[in-house]
């Protein structure tokens, strides 16, 4: 640790401010929500992401044929259909940048907000994998969809690197209107498996 003097002085100043104890936090807000596949699909689509509800993943991946797609560690073998050039780790920054897209699973999804959360485990890879390719195809199983933000946070391990994704990359910086497509993947496609 560096600069002990600054640390001690700041902590001392805080103590001498003598802020009185606060009232206990009342968590009267909703812990749950209606949830469900339909709500999740609708909310994801609101961000102008592409959403499909499917029963068979390999069939739904046909459209990837002829493309160079990143597939992180732990992606099920049956997803790795023929006719796609699958890019596997180790991959350099440039290789990721030049890929046509990336196929992942997810850790948790949130129906209320149309959010998918990646935690770097099984079928998700390190964070750069879902950032550099311009197209992200994410497979969400029905049983991974939490109803609300509070429910989702309980299911996550905070010390893993987490990325919450709600629609494609966007900006509100020009006249405060949302425009899709800046630095992150400009196309987000979500397959909900029921």
């Amino acid at each position, binding site marked *: 640790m560096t600069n002990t003097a600054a640390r001690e002085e700041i902590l001392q100043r805080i103590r001498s401010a003598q802020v009185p104890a*606060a009232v206990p936090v009342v968590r009267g*807000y909703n812990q749950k929500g209606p949830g469900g596949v339909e709500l999740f699909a609708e909310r994801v689509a*609101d961000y102008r992401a592409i959403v499909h509800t499917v029963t068979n993943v390999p069939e739904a991946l046909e459209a990837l044929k002829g493309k160079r797609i990143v597939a992180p560690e732990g992606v099920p073998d049956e997803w790795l259909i023929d006719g796609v050039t699958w890019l596997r780790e180790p991959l350099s920054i440039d290789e990721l940048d030049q890929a046509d897209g990336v196929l992942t699973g997810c850790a948790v999804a*949130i129906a209320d907000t149309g959010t998918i959360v990646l935690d770097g485990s099984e079928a998700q890879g390190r964070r750069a994998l879902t950032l550099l390719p311009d197209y992200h195809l994410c497979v969400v199983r029905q049983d991974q969809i939490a109803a609300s933000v509070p429910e989702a946070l309980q299911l996550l391990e905070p010390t893993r690197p987490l990325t919450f994704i709600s629609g494609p990359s966007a900006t509100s910086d020009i006249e405060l209107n949302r425009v899709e497509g800046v630095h992150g993947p400009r196309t987000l496609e979500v397959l909900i498996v029921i």
Partner: protein
Amino acid sequence: MARNPVTWLGSPTFPKAAKEALNDTQLRQNLRKATGTIRGRRAAAVAEMTDWEMLRVAGEQIKDDVLARLDTLLVQLEESVTARGGVVHWARDAEEANRIVLDLCRAEQATEVVKVKSMATAEIGLNEALEAGGVQAIETDLAELIVQLGEDRPSHILVPAIHRNRSEIREIFQRRMGVEVSDEPADLAEAARVYLRQKFLTTKVAISGANFAVADTGSIVVLESEGNGRMCLTLPDTLITVMGIEKLVPSWQDLEVFLQLLPRSSTAERMNPYTSVWTGVTPGDGPQNFHLVLIDNGRTATLTDSVGRQALRCIRCSACLNVCPVYERTGGQSYGSVYPGPIGAILTPQLMGDLHDPLAASLPYASSLCGACFEVCPVRIDIPSVLTHLRAEVVEAKGRTAESVAMSAAAWIFREASRYEKAQKAGSLARFLAKDGKITSLPWPGSKWTSSRDVPAPPSESFRAWWRKNRCQE
């Protein structure tokens, strides 16, 4: 002690700057359009939540708890970040923080760093300090980039280039990037993407702020839209995060409140496109060197003021700017600080800690006290109360006068919303008492005020009531 760069050197007082801004019709048009859009969208995003008020109350209580236990929580944060491979630094003021960051950049032999938008680094004037030390800071947030390339100053917390419309942005991009581009927002975004791509892929050091830091896990949280944040937080070898000491939440569970309050209040979305959470260093994923710089820079002084300290609950959503009738007309730059609008009017003078400074002393008057800011604030900061409290302090600083007595009375009135409403109603009645458009006496509690000055006759409907009817609902 060095001057606090939270205000820009040589800025005029608020009324002077505002007068000039009011003559800029283009500016007012841009702001009216942008804030009008966001007001309506925010109202819709909030109306969807049946438990919004409960979330606001929880947000207020969690933040008050943070302020009450700040020393313990900071030490806890330090322990958890250190345990996960991060290094924690402490900075008493802007100068100390800037030196720490510059030394870290030099240790990595970096001459260029990429930056994610951060109010804390803007507040301490980090970019200028780095430049003086030979390190070029590249802003990667679209609006920050517009400000940086336009050699301009920010005018909004969330969208620093809110005062620029699309054709002005086009002009800046063409001039500085040397590219042909249309004024379509999608094309402008594409131009920024191309311009920054190589920087992201090759720069070794990134600097970020933090929206939240979770004391018990050491996790840092950054909310963003474009993916520039993810680029900076993921690709470089070294990440330096600069954060005000009040940005804590005690536990992971507390984020469930703020991840709902912040996106709806700031960009009026159910959720912003990207939120990144990281804890120290993760082998094989993201930066392998992580530094967290905790800055005081006037916060502990603010903490000593029992009324003013609530400003430290602020989560920088900018909702109060977007609803403020004064901000909409004067623009953000009139406030002479990186923190404009209602929050700036109460935060800047407190961080400066010098009410003898003419600009700081003028800021608490940069408001009509209409109360719209309090109504939208996700952590329920009672900005009108703090404003009147600070006005009293300004007057106090000038010496105890009849006006200072009246101001304390006003502060007392504004501290309770109900008292304020009562005073306002009394104010509407007072119109019948006016002679020559001036009131020399008001019924209680306004009488405490008029005992020392003549006030102009108010319109029959109070401004606050009018505003609530006409604008808050938008």
